[in-house]
């Protein structure tokens, strides 16, 4: 698992160096590390933007999984997050789904995600977005509606850690937005 981390780190460092001194980046600096597969500047820059695109895609799939898990339609909510989130985050989301199932709560519709931004540093990063939950209504499986809480009606920021694991990006723990993002 951690075997790919040094490589990715090196890749990122190489990218930084190359951005600063493009001329110096001829690929020679890679000779000391035969394991590093992408030594060229153009490639590493692409890797950085590619990572951001990958993370954004994973985040979107993750939110879709959250919606699916809380819709009450999935028999095994944890499976929805497979390959999208860390074990802890999978367990946490499966927990919400199971408590909803237990209480007969479902959420119908979906939240509106906007302003997704991704920051990658080394083999970890942060994805943040605005989440508008006003169209993601709580209901009881009996059909009775639950009045949406006031807090649900105002868009709010969400920030998640992302970590690289075995070549793919996983959504980790939610973290405090800390007032840096407004929605």
């Amino acid at each position, binding site marked *: 698992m951690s075997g790919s981390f040094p490589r990715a780190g090196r890749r990122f460092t190489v990218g930084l160096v190359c951005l600063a001194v493009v001329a110096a980046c001829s690929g020679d600096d890679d000779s000391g590390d035969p394991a590093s597969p992408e030594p060229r500047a153009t490639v590493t820059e692409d890797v950085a933007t590619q990572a951001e695109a990958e993370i954004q895609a994973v985040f979107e799939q993750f939110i879709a999984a959250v919606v699916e898990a809380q819709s009450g339609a999935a028999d095994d909510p944890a499976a929805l997050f497979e390959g999208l989130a860390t074990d802890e985050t999978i367990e946490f989301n499966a927990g*919400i789904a199971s408590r909803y199932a237990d209480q007969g709560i479902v959420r119908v519709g979906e939240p509106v995600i906007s302003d997704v931004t991704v920051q990658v540093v080394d083999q970890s990063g942060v994805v943040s977005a605005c989440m508008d939950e006003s169209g993601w209504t709580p209901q009881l499986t009996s059909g009775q509606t639950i009045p949406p809480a006031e807090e649900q009606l105002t868009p709010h920021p969400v920030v998640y850690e992302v970590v690289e694991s075995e070549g793919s990006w996983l959504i980790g723990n*939610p973290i405090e937005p800390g007032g840096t993002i407004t929605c």
Partner: protein
Amino acid sequence: MLTPRRVSQVLMATAVLLIGLLGGIAPGQAATLRPAAVEPATDPCYVLIEVRPGVFEYVNICPDPDEEDSGEDGGSGGGGPRCDLTEEPYDEFCLGTKACRADIPSPLSEEKWPEHTRPGPDHIFTFVQCRVPGQEELYERWRWIEPYEDALPGLGWQALGRLQTPAFTMRFEPAGMTYVGADTRFLLDGLGDGEIIGSVAGPLQATGMLSHVEIDPGDGSATIECDPDLRSRACEHVYLEMSYDQTAEDFDGNPGFAAQARLVYDITFTMGGVEVNLPGVPDTLESPWNGTVVPVGEIQALVRTR
């Protein structure tokens, strides 16, 4: 018969009646309609909790049918526990017939608790896991609970951690330099009125009263217990050696003994205003040490420098 006067009287009466009816009904209707329109929003059972930063979860906080008539969640209600508390870790308290454990202290910070639904000041909002009789699956829920008795020490530690001892300063007399064989008196500033009060941890509050001060004169002699405000236990010490060979120096560069003091508080815990005893939780709290450098000279040296 139907004189103009009569007609106008009838019209007048109708108008008055209508006005009266409208005036009377309108507020009445508002009174009956408003609760009906707003009723869903006041559903007391469902609240939205921010269980992680930016992650919200709807929670039904109402007790289950099996918990009815057990106002006391702590298992202290009459008739003894109604659940089987023999299986660890679900052996802490009963919620009706469910045998439960709870995260104490709560993983949710207090500002995230649905305060408007709090059943009483002694309740805390936390994550509860229970065994349900005849059911394989665990009951897991965010709930208000009254911490059961054995959980109080955990909260006591939390309450203790919220007590802050004041930042004090230490000085001595005679100021600047004292002398071998003389009475050196230590004084502390910034102690306030001696009482420190912590914020509430669940149902518990910790209060500290300054009991005494411990002073380490820094010359290798024993720690003095004293009270800087009371003459009966004045913080005095007699140095028997000069301090010229000490490594610590005061602001003027004079070598001196590194004397230090700390405050010792007696701690009491109260729950709803009533003092409670918490086994295993310390009943005293010491402040960090804080000190000053005390240069000690000889009287002869004083005579010579003058």
